[in-house]
């Protein structure tokens, strides 16, 4: 089956290709079901091909497809190992559910088939990224994911905000990509290849720690762009302009995990540089608490989730920075379940509320849409880290690992703990604002539960959010054993040993989660006047959080506006008057000189040609005379 693993990429790619050319001839749901079948098939192939890893003992194989750029050792090759297999399963599994959900959500859109073309293309790109056997092919998937993100955020292109958000996402990602690209230059110059196998086995012998630090930090720049870390996270909240299934698929469950995957995949390089590890972890922890504080005060149901995603990705960076790669990937997986669920649930709510996204205008939806409410409630508990739900196990493993590593990481552990409290608060606030209390809807809105095609994926994701964490508990480290072959070249950071320590650390984080949830419930399960007063009590902090600290404004004033002015100066005050002016000035001098020679200035090109020829002959004669 491993030889057929290219099908994992090829199926959604073929789906995209088919829909691109033939999609407009298909009736509405058919295009969606076709796309879902393509990615579903991809999931089946991946699952079957992953069986040897589940049985254990397999290290993975490289499948070579074709030469791409031989001069820099880049070929199209797939590395099928436990890590790529797990990533492929998450992408195709969660992806399939989101495809199906979108069939209901995009109902009635005039570019229905186009949407599924892009979704399938996105899946193929993300799978290229995670299945790549070398950095060049990873970069291929990396950039194509960015392309799909651009296409999907800007899907409703007549909305100027959507078009601007799409452009912003691509450009900010590109800034990160610049770092990754320079990192790849370093890698190639050091190893003479971009192939994983060639690099990782030799890294220990051939890479100095200085070089490893440089490569690691450059990779971090790329990862921070794609995974929306400080200071490059600003594109992700705006990306919510895309249709909600896009937010779920790309901006929660899959694309944004690419940076985490990059660091985990490059574990052998990060292994050699403590500086790079600490920087990754610190960026992660800083992002986690920064974005969580912003999420506290958001009114838009999707923006809460967007900043929550940024924050949770921070946890994953904290994990991989602490070399707790398994914990990071574990959280990546559980987060994919509950964040996809949250986004799809939010989509279901927005759908029911006639595209209303302001939570202050919701309330009391529990009775109107019970399935959405209950499943979202489960996801809220999961992300808040309440045991035994999925988020508890993975978040706890991250915090435990940071604690165990000690030193500076103890500080990061405390940051993570505070973030856990904030997370529980803003998620509970969201759920209470949306589903409890009195209805605050605009007139004319009649909320209703979404159709089966949308609720079924919610239920499946809810089940995964409940039980998904059991794959890796201190009692049974199934995931760890599964992933071990992919990390055998590096030392993995673990949480402290022993039941006592586990209960102590877990107890602390559960306490943080419960405290946050309880505070939010008490604050918001009241009349709107009361909780508005509660929010007002936090001024001016609350206003700063609500405006996301004004970072977009600052970037606009400090980077974008001066950049544009500089470009205008270069174009209109330098290029035209000075560079071109010099040329034209030179031309004028010659023209004035030529005034006295007016008789030969006939204006006929043939005469100029004759003069040119004559001049040439003079030069030749001069040279002949000189040479002889």
């Amino acid at each position, binding site marked *: 089956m491993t030889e057929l693993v290219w099908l994992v990429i090829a199926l959604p790619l073929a789906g995209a290709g088919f829909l691109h050319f033939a999609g407009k001839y298909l009736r509405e749901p058919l295009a969606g079901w076709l796309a879902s079948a393509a990615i579903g098939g991809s999931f089946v192939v991946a699952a079957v091909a992953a069986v040897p890893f589940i049985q254990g003992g397999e290290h993975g194989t*490289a499948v070579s497809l*074709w030469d*791409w*750029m*031989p*001069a*820099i*050792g880049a070929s199209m090759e797939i590395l099928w190992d436990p890590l790529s297999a797990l990533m492929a399963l998450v992408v195709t599994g969660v992806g399939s559910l989101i495809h199906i959900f979108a069939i209901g959500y995009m109902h009635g859109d005039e570019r229905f088939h186009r949407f599924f073309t892009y979704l399938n293309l996105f899946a193929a790109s993300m799978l290229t990224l995670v299945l790549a056997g070398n950095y*060049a092919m990873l*970069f*291929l998937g990396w*950039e*194509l994911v960015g*392309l799909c993100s651009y296409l999907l955020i*800007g899907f409703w*292109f*007549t*909305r100027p905000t*959507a*078009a601007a958000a799409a*452009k912003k996402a*691509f*450009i900010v990602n*590109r800034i990160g*990509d*610049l770092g990754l*690209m*320079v990192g*790849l*230059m*370093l890698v*190639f*110059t050091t*190893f*003479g*290849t971009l192939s994983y*196998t*060639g*690099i990782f*086995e030799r890294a220990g012998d051939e890479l100095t720690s200085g070089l490893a630090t440089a490569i690691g930090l450059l990779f971090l720049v790329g990862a921070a762009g794609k995974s929306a870390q400080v200071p490059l996270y600003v594109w992700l909240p705006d990306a919510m302009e895309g249709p909600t299934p896009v937010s779920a698929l790309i901006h929660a469950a899959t694309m944004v995990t690419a940076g985490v995957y990059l660091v985990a995949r490059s574990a052998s390089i990060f292994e050699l540089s403590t500086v790079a590890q600490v920087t990754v972890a610190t960026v992660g922890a800083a992002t986690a608490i920064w974005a969580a504080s912003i999420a506290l005060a958001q009114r838009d149901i999707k923006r809460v989730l967007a900043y929550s995603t940024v924050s949770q990705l921070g946890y994953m960076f904290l994990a991989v920075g602490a070399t707790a790669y398994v914990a990071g990937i574990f959280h990546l997986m559980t987060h994919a379940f509950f964040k996809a669920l949250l986004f799809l649930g939010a989509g279901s709510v927005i759908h029911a509320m006639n595209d209303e996204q302001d939570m202050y205008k919701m309330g009391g939806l529990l009775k109107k849409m019970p399935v959405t409410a209950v499943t979202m409630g489960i996801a809220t508990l999961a992300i808040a880290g309440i045991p035994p739900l999925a988020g508890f196990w993975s978040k706890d493993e991250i915090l435990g690992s940071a604690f165990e590593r000690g030193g500076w990481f103890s500080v990061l552990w405390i940051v993570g703990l505070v973030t856990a409290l904030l997370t529980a608060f803003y998620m509970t606030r969201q759920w209470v604002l949306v589903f409890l209390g009195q209805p605050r809807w605009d007139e004319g809105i009649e909320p209703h539960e979404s159709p089966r095609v949308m609720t079924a994926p919610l239920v499946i994701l809810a089940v995964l959010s409940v039980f998904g964490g059991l794959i890796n508990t201190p009692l049974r480290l199934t995931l760890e054993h599964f992933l071990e072959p992919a990390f055998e070249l590096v030392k993995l950071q673990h949480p402290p040993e022993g039941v006592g320590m586990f209960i102590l650390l877990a107890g602390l984080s559960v306490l943080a989660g419960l405290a946050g949830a309880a505070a939010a419930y008490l604050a918001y399960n009241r009349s709107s006047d009361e909780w508005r007063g509660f929010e007002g009590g936090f001024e001016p902090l609350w206003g700063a959080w609500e405006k996301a600290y004004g970072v977009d404004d600052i970037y606009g004033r400090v980077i974008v506006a001066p950049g*544009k002015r*500089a*470009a*205008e100066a*270069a*174009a*209109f005050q330098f*290029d035209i008057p000075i*560079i*071109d002016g010099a*040329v034209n000035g030179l*031309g004028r001098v010659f023209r004035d000189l030529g005034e006295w020679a007016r008789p030969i200035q006939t204006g006929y*090109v043939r005469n100029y040609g004759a003069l*040119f020829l004559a001049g*040439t002959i003079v*030069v*030749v004669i001069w*040279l*002949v005379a000189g*040479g002889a």
Partner: protein
Amino acid sequence: MLTWLILLPVLAAIIVSLVPSRRSELHLSLGIALAVLPLALAGYVFWAFEPVSGYQFIEDVTWYAPWGIGWTLGIDGISLPMVVLTTLLVPIALGASTSIEKRRKEFVVYTLLLEAGMIGVFLALDLFIFFVFFEAILIPMYFIIGIWGSDRRVYAAVKFFIYTAFGSALMLAGIIALAFTHAEQFGSLSFALSDLMRLDLPIGAERWLFAAFALAFAIKVPLFPVHTWLPDAHTEAPTAGSVLLAGVLLKLGTYGLLRFNLSLFPEASVDAVWIMGILAVVGIVYGAVVAIVQPDLKRLVAYSSVSHLGFIVLGTFAFTSGAMQGAVIQNVNHGITTGALFLLVGMLYERRHTKLISEFGGIQKSMPVFAGFFLFMAFASIGLPGLNGFVGEFLVLIGAYATLPVLAVIAASGVVLAAIYLLWAYERVFTGVPEKPENQNLADLSTREVALLAPLAALVLVIGLYPNVLLDKIAPSAEAVLDHVVEASGLVIPEPGRLADVFVTDGEGE
């Protein structure tokens, strides 16, 4: 065989010129039909070309023995892709010229003569006939801009002509000096490239000659700061003129640097690495920055060419296998994507008679197919992996890092800038709600227009995913140029810079 590649367009031009002027409906279609013949022949040459170093299909006839001039033609992996590209772009450019009503016959004749000249430049292995072709091209291009261009066409045409002719005058002196040096050292005049490569030049003379050649080619590329003829020429030229200008004419400069400067003056080339590299990188960044704020779509694409061509020059002077191959393949890639972008802008111009970005907005609504092609080509130009532009730029950047790390890193910022200027332009032209009434009911692409763009789009994908269709044939010739430079100058190329090293280390890795 190669002589026929040059003669076919000439014969085509003669045939078209024999058709009476009143049968004006025939000229264009006949021209397109006849332009397919050189394409077919070039396709055969491409197919029959063996992927080894050295010139193939050589034709060598003494033309004027006393001066040592020969009709010497040959093709290698560096010129082959350019010849094929030229023969492909000419029928496409003609097919995009249906809106030309005025003096249509002359237009077709000039375009075909231009094709002959361009192919001649790429095939010539004798510097005399190279120079003849190099200059001959100016004449049809001068007329194409000056007669069929837009408002300031005469200004642009004269500027184009004088600027480039000025550069070539110095090169001509250099060529003649080389021929006489050959007479000194070997007893007879010769203009043959292979003869002149054997000359033993004092380093001082070699540097002067390098500069004379490099200036001529730098103006053609164009390199900063001799680039200002390009935006004017592009903006005023008719669509076909812009396509051929960007697709082929600019490549005469990069091709000339690679073929003549590196081969004839290897030591001076190594000495000039920093000058050429810095000019290239300045061009990459400067061209992109200036492109961002251009109000006119054609000027924007024109400045983007200044930026993209910088990558080619950087790759040429980085002296590693990857960078050299990247430079050669980027010649082709830029011709395809920028040619296509000019086609697209031309199609828009035919509908709205303006190229000003501010005149548009929201036209994706009425022209979805057009928008799709534009975005596709824009992303190819941005260097999205999987499309052709990436292959060239990535090879250049990764390859150049081994020898010119600082310049390579600065050059890499060009990929961010490219995304800024193209996506911002796309946003302003295509997205939002079409507010101007004239933007609301634009006709989408016709079958003819799709047929012109589709082959280019297909090539973008094929080269992007399987560049070996070209790299297989390019690599041995690029290596040969590197070998020559190394042999003549004693340059030591650091380890992962040479193809052989890559294969060795890759083999060890697995």
